[in-house]
């Protein structure tokens, strides 16, 4: 299990090249709805990292960040991408 600092350094979005820490900072500094806040992080219109970013957005609203959950969601996505590329 990763500690908080390790999770904060994980890359959450390849398109925008953002870490979890940067995504949290951006989400905390906007009051825009999720769809628009997501674009501030990704700088694109794609939704590859949507699930993880939505977790962060909800956690920001809730007022408590669950770093284990964030790490889990990112790792799940990477695992899925690996499986898909193996299949291709």
């Amino acid at each position: 299990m990763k500690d908080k600092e390790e999770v904060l350094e994980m890359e959450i979005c390849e398109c925008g090249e953002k870490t979890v820490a940067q995504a949290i900072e951006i989400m905390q500094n906007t009051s825009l709805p999720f769809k628009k806040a997501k674009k501030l992080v990704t700088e694109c219109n794609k939704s590859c990292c949507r699930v993880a970013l939505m977790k962060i957005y909800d956690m920001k609203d809730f007022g408590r960040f669950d770093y284990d959950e964030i790490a889990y969601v990112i790792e799940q996505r990477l695992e899925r991408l690996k499986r898909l590329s193996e299949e291709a």
Partner: protein
Amino acid sequence: MYDYEWDRLKTWLDQYGAIDESITSAEQITRLDLSAKSLKDIPASIGILCNLIVLNVSNNKLSTLPDSMKELSALRNLDIRRNNFEELPEVVTSLSLRSLNASGNQLKSLCLLKNSKELRVLDFSSNAIRNLESFLPIKNELRTLNLSSNLIKDIDMFLPNLASVERLNLSNNVIVNIPHSIEHLESIEELDLSSNQIEKIDDAFFNLEVEIVDLSANNLKSLHLFSLESLEELTLDENDFEDLSIEDYFAPYLKEFSCDSCSLETFLLPPSEFLEMLCYSSNEIKAIPDEIGHYSKLTQLDIDENLIEDLPDSLANLVYLQTFYAKGNPLNEHAKKVIDVLSPNICDLNMKSGITIERAGADDLAQMAKLLSVLFAIEKDFEIDFDKQFSGIQSLYKCEGADLLVAKYENSVVGMITMQRLISSAEGDYIGQIEDLVVYEEYRKMGVGSRLLNKMRVIAQEYEYKRIQLAADIDNSNALEFYNRRGFNKTNLNLYHYTV
């Protein structure tokens, strides 16, 4: 008589703090939470818990379950999510469950849940399921099925067994076609097909009585929308459409329609008179038709990042429009006048970018004291007195256990919030007392207050405060609504002052 099996099981359960001292027999146990205990196996003696209804063994390292679990005839809710199961244990198929959560494992396929005629909720999300044979008995009462984040390509085979399903999540798979067998979803209300590779949708789909559909992030190039008579929300974001059209008899009760990032050049008008939210953000649209004024119930319109120069006068007729996003368009002066007349509560054109939230510094204190006057002008219990306010803020700044945040725009304080540490005898620990949350009028409706409060909540979390609390003037309806929306609960306590 000495019950050896119960004694062993009780010792094991005690070890994980799963039962309290009042439990003296196996029959007393109806619920067990054994989540996140790093369990690699469960003792076979669990089978003696004949009255167990709910079992949570999520977030462990389990790859099997003991066969003795088939004796758990009362078990209705089983949570095995986030373990190491590569296949669904045979014993699960023999249980008469109401809900089963097996998400976050490594399941590759599903076997027939033969005794699951009463199953209502089933979650197999975040596994590695590729093939879906018939895993449910033909007669079943399943209401909610989550198969998101798997590797499912073909859904044709299992749809006939989903006649009672109301919520179906198939997002994040590799589905290419919506087949004719979708017609079997006779009870469907919510259908999530986002983030797949869907290219084709069979006409049978448009006869469903579904209310919410998400088809975003697929490979749809051409789509003709018709029927779907019960539809209330449709999301088509992130499809690279070459041809999107809407029939006059499409979704007469539609409330929300979103086509964000769809390469559209034309602003299509769904025929529903009940439309409340319309999103055409990030397209290549050049004009909004006059008929937009017919959507008398529209509360949110999003046209940002398009090529729109002018706005029709009819837009100003939308009296219920509260939120309007229009940034990133080459709007002319007439368009800006229309927005002025429209005067929505929230408009991204009016929002100032570059407002920062930071800890207050010594240089900010005088500005904060001045800002407090805005708050005290609203609150009848206080009188405006700059010297007292400045003195108070200075004391707070120096006080250990106090946190002061400011919102700044171009180096000026435009908003503030403070929090002081208190000890609560009720909580038996520290709590945070929030005070002085105020934002200058011209910087309101930009989310500054929310950001200040969110940041302070994170600070409270870091301090591990058990609670944060605040007082608000009963006549300040804006503030009361603001705190309600952000999860603060009104208490029964009244505040009393006594001047010493």
